[in-house]
């Protein structure tokens, strides 16, 4: 089965191969389960799998046939519901989605990823976040911001009642909170600014 997907010129599965693969396992290429699969394979970059990554990944998943692959899909999908695994997959997504050789993640890609990820694990502020970034920030996203955002989504309640303005949140997240409050989106209690 590998041979069909494999790129003719390199020991890799590239975009075309991936489309074929998705077809075969009956998964939409935009489906988030692809991300989870990539995570299992420890893929370095999105839209490509090296031979090593692919082979080892399949082994780790215990897949040796197309049927087994299809059977495993629901299991992989369920992993996304696990809090801990979700975090790992989320963190993994940053390096996977960014351009090779870049330190930061392009804004458009980041927004796309966030929308995908937070559809899975619901975060009510994701739309506002994306809007805010496009209106006010318009630059690439650093790794620190990426990681901290999940933390923010997980720990800070959407009404912002437990947000600590003097904490070590990245600057961008502080700005986001200000943006929300300015626009009256959340009438949460301001935590004590005058600590």
């Amino acid at each position: 089965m590998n041979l069909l997907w494999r790129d003719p010129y390199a020991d890799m599965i590239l975009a075309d191969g991936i489309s074929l693969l998705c077809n075969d396992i009956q998964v939409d290429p935009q489906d988030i389960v692809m991300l989870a699969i990539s995570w299992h394979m420890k893929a370095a970059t999105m839209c490509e799998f090296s031979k090593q990554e692919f082979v080892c990944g399949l082994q780790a998943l215990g897949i040796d046939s197309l049927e087994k692959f299809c059977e495993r899909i629901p299991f992989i999908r369920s992993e996304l519901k696990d809090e801990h695994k979700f975090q790992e997959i989320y963190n993994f997504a940053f390096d996977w989605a960014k351009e090779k050789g870049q330190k930061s993640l392009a804004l458009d890609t980041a927004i796309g990823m966030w929308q995908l990820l937070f559809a899975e694990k619901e975060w009510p502020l994701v739309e506002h976040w994306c809007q805010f970034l496009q209106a006010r920030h318009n630059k690439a996203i650093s790794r620190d911001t990426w990681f901290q955002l999940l933390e923010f989504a997980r720990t800070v309640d959407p009404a912002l009642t437990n947000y600590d303005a003097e904490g070590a949140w990245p600057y961008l997240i502080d700005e986001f909170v200000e943006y929300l409050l300015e626009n009256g989106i959340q009438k949460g209690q301001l935590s004590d600014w005058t600590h």
Partner: protein
Amino acid sequence: MNDRKTIDLEQGWDFMQKGITKLKNILEGLPEPQFSSEDYMMLYTTIYNMCTQKPPHDYSQQLYDKYRESFEEYITSAVLPSLREKHDEFMLRELVKRWSNHKVMVRWLSRFFHYLDRYFIARRSLPGLNEVGLTCFRDLVYQELNGKVRDAVISLIDQEREGEQIDRALLKNVLDIFVEIGMGQMDHYENDFEEVMLKDTAAYYSRKASNWILEDSCPDYMLKAEECLKREKDRVSHYLHFSSEPKLLEKVQHELLSVYATQLLEKEHSGCHALLRDDKVEDLSRMYRLFWKIPRGLDPVSNIFKQHVTTEGTALVKQAEDAASNKKADKKDVVGLQEQVFVRKVIELHDKYMAYVNDCFTNHTLFHKALKEAFEIFCNKGVSGSSSAELLATFCDNILKKGGSEKLSDEAIEETLEKVVKLLAYISDKDLFAEFYRKKLARRLLFDKSANDEHERSILTKLKQQCGGQFTSKMEGMVTDLTLAKENQSNFEEYLSNNPNINPGIDLTVTVLTTGFWPSYKSFDLNLPAEMVKCVEVFREFYQTKTKHRKLTWIYSLGTCNINGKFDQKTMELIVTTYQASALLLFNTSDTLSYQEIMTQLNLSDDDVVRLLHSLSCAKYKILTKEPNTKTITPTDHFEFNSKFTDKMRRIKIPLPPVDEKKKVIEDVDKDRRYAIDASIVRIMKSRKVLGYQQLVMECVEQLGRMFKPDVKAIKKRIEDLITRDYLERDKDNPNIF
């Protein structure tokens, strides 16, 4: 004679009784001859015998009892009745007399009965004769009367407070009784007298204070308070026991001052605020003296002081702002006269209130702190767009440069510089001041505008003392550079004279500067006229002979040129900048030039060209004529050499106004600050390895505080930047820790 006959108790006592009666009579003032030594001997011996007889005739115990009974009898029969029938002052006098008598009686009787003391009492560890005697008085007289006595005394004290004359000696004697009756302990004095006296005092002053506070102004009230305290102190020294002093004064202070402190200080027209406003130095000194003794008494005073100074300072700022906004719009960016006046006034304000702190408030740290905080508040407010750092730097510039607006004696200059440096302590953006100062210093040094080298060095020394060596190291480098440059120049001239063939034909003076010390200047690639190009080449060669490892970058924008202009009327020497000279020399080869042509040939920016052409054709001296003859330069203008130009002087200077450096300075400082914050964060983390976010920010602010107040947001940004650059990382478990 030698055979002692046993004395029988009744007999012996009879004999003693006679002696006792005699004593009583003397005390009562009845005519009675004094005791002779024989009398005394007999009485003593009788006791002696009765004590040393063999039992059952040793009557020591009985005699001891009878000794005491004698007192009791006398007191109950004579002393108490006479005291009971008297009142007030008369009673007091009687008491004093009776007490005095009693002491005499005790003294005498105990001498008669002395033998008891030696053996009987000692052996049985009983209270001694003296003690027994005093105890009788205490238990019988004192016990009954001390209340009345106390009240009488207090009443007299209150009378004295109201201004009446009283018999102080009497009171002293009475109070001595209270003390002596304690027989070494103060508890009778304290419990039976002092406690009530203090209560009464408190009540007395409380009444007075509640009246005075309504009627009197603050200074008057304070005068009264001071007077009261003085009188009470006086009272103690005359008749109260010295141990009462602190307690008494504390009560008075409490009732007069502590209770009414706020009302007093905040009295509308005469309270602390008003006194400061009206410069009532004496009253303020009094206020300090009085409130100093009360716990936390000075806190509200120092707060009012701080508020007052802040208000005055802020008013100055507003004044300057108003004056500045009335200026012409085109002069807005230049720090003008008003701002100079402002700095002067701030210095004066500081002097004035420092004097207050030193004199009225005797250098108390609380007031030093209040003054400092007040100045920090308004000194950091800018005036019409110029920060206080800039104003201060400009002020210094005016003092230090030739032809500055301040004409002062050397001493006055030194003094003023000293004060300016002190003011710098209050400004939080010290690094901004340093940058402005450096820029202006550069101008002064390079254009030889410094009035006095000594003063330049002196202020640098003061700045170094105040802000540390790092603050002034670059500036000192600049001053040193000039000295070296002079040396260098003389070497260059020697080189030229040794090689006459390469002499460029023009006198050239070059000042070589060490890049690190001086502010950064943009160097434009000016197209020099051919004559000058040669000079540059020659110097370059010369410099190569000195050092091979240094790179020379020419900053033509700072150069000056003396050129001769051959006008119709006469040839004049023009002192211009290199840029201006380059422009003028173009007219050696062309009669008319357009703006575009000039710009292209010189290879300068629009800004520079406009400025320099303006100075040559639209300012005081019109070396060039402009077509059309308007007041501003436009890119379509044409210029021609004005051969008709003349002036009564042979030599004129054509100034080229400097570019506004303010924006650049602020930019530079911001950049430096970012580096400083980075360096500080890295330094802290290197030594601490792991640190919580809040603490990191705190330490950073502290470290950098000497030069400027870092913005917390800026620090956060730098931290994130450092994370991205992999210098820092968040702790895996706690994102608040690095």
